[in-house]
């Protein structure tokens, strides 16, 4: 049998860092599986929760913005369908952020006792939110049938936008969870960020209602690109290309910054947690 040699140094080389993640992929699967399993075992309503939440929020948005405030979708799709299509990626993003940011502190007993690439922990909590997303997506299909709304050929691009949502929430989640280890009261700020984000992200309205000159600036929010992309794929709404490119670029930068910050802080996790 080949003997594996491990070299421990103050700085981990780039190659070894990524190779180690590959080596620990089984632990990653099993931790993700644990998180999913526990999530649906612990709550009484379990999976139903990931249906109830987006549906109720969509109903409330429709009543308040559409019926009372007379806000409508400038595109073809019904207002409530537009809201739900935006609500899906948003809720995935919001869940991922809150789950990921608490993930390291929540697994402190593992981190102080066993070695594994720490990035596995926030990654598996984003994966868990992905399962919620998948369940809510079934409701979307029901809604599309109900409204007899057939997505065009764009729908084949949907996986790309799902990946983009994943990357955006993973990048920010990495940053938040590392900050959370260092500043333990940071977690109180996260619900606020999520709440605030809901209003500055085009969930209850279409980004087409914005004045043309602000649209590019607005796309600095990566979720603008994701939600517009979802609506483009599923509801055949027009995609604002420059804005999408900016959102995509910001998403990639966020991932890069998140990983870099996480790696810098990672060495101190066992000592600081």
């Amino acid at each position, binding site marked *: 049998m080949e003997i*594996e040699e491990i070299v421990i140094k103050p700085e981990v080389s780039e190659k070894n860092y990524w190779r180690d993640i590959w080596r620990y992929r089984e632990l990653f699967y099993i931790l993700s599986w644990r998180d999913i399993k526990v999530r649906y075992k612990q709550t009484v309503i379990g999976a139903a929760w990931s249906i109830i939440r987006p549906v109720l929020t969509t109903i409330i948005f429709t009543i308040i913005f559409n019926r009372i405030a007379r806000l409508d979708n400038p595109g073809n799709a019904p207002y409530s369908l537009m809201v739900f299509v935006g609500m899906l990626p948003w809720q995935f993003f919001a869940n991922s952020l809150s789950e990921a940011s608490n993930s390291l502190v929540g697994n402190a007993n593992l981190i102080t006792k066993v070695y594994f690439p720490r990035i596995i922990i926030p990654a598996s909590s984003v994966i868990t939110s992905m399962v919620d997303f998948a369940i809510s997506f079934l409701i979307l299909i029901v809604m599309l049938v109900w409204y007899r709304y057939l997505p065009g050929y764009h729908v084949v691009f949907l996986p790309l936008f799902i990946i983009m949502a994943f990357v955006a929430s993973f990048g920010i989640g990495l940053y938040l969870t590392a900050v959370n280890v260092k500043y333990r009261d940071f977690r109180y700020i996260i619900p606020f960020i999520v709440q605030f984000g809901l209003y500055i992200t085009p969930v209850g309205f279409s980004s087409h209602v914005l004045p043309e000159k602000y649209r590019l600036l607005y796309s600095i929010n990566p979720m603008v690109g994701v939600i517009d992309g979802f609506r483009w794929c599923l509801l055949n709404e027009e995609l604002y290309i420059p804005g999408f490119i900016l959102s995509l670029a910001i998403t990639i930068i966020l991932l890069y910054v998140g990983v870099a910050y996480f790696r810098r802080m990672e060495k101190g996790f066992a000592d600081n947690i």
Partner: protein
Amino acid sequence: MKPVIEVKNIAKSFIITHEGKKENYKALRDVIAGGVKKMFSFSNSMRGRQTSEEFFALKNVSFEVEAGDRVGIVGRNGAGKSTLLKILSRITPPTAGEIAIRGRIASLLEVGTGFHPELTGRENIYLNGAILGMKRAEIKNKFDDIVSFAEVEKFLDTPVKRYSSGMYVRLAFAVAAHLDPEILIVDEVLAVGDAQFQKKCLGKMEDVSKNEGRTVLFVSHNMGIVKSLCNKGILLNQGEVEHSGNVQSILSAYSDQLVSDNSVVYKHIAGDQRVEIKKINIARRNELSVYDKISISINLAQTDNAWQLITKYHFFLLFHNMEGDVIWSVFQKDNENYFDRMPGNSVKVDLLNILLPGSYLISAGIFDHNDQFVDWVEYAETLEILSAFAGNKTFDNRYGKVTTKAEWYVD
């Protein structure tokens, strides 16, 4: 063949800031509040107060471990043993230096690390196995063995939160026992919590190291266990390797270190020291065997002729194992001979040693006529009992903590 572990000039330092706080993490509000304070205070006046200092938990640590070595790492609390193990098991990175490890490495951890109470026994076997570093296929292969070892067949699909504590420990241990790394790391401090589990862990270690020829690194305060399990040793002192070599020489260096520290100041834990115990001398301290005579003399100092005021004072001795449990106690009052006058500057006591081979700590004290403490020194001296009977007869590895002679006759 290359050594399985090569440690070169490892150092680990922590930055300690003197803010009078002990938390590892900061609160954001403090940082913000501190920042605001700084803005409003006159430039440099605040900066001087917050001093920070680099503290070295380990420095210049170098050693090599050959395949099949069983290495005991000893040293006092704070010597850096646990930090060294944490670096070797990659939980925390070193600040400087380099380590090469050739072979699969695993640690025996606290009972059921990573067990999730909501998950079933079956699920937890896979989870815990993966956390300890086993591959899925490997766990699958050993699954039946693990289950029968733990004796939990009937409860495999029950969440472990409904397990009795005995079942829980058995399952946790069963998984750990089926690990087969080339290098095993055991921290006694981590393995405690359950005496039975600890015993099983030690049994497993012995099995792994002696019978299967694996490499073991073992951190312990229990010199008896180190001696019986290990063939090599490393003595750490304030973050540096003080000695390394065969286990016998390490242990005697360690006990010399303990005693030389102790002789400086005894720890007085009770009494007003009207009469103070200055020094406890044990004749042939490191040469005694089972059933040998122990001769102890206790040197005393008194304030203002205190003896005149005390009548019926009497002494006691306690023998502790290295974990601090009292194994044997000896009280002068049992003989009903008390001292009534100043006996000179020392008191002598002779007794027959009933302690089995191992390392012990000695405490001694004085009571006055009201059974109030006059003095009590804890862990004042160490005592090493050799693995032999008096008269250099070979020891028979008998069970127990103490052994006595008795009258035997046919009725």
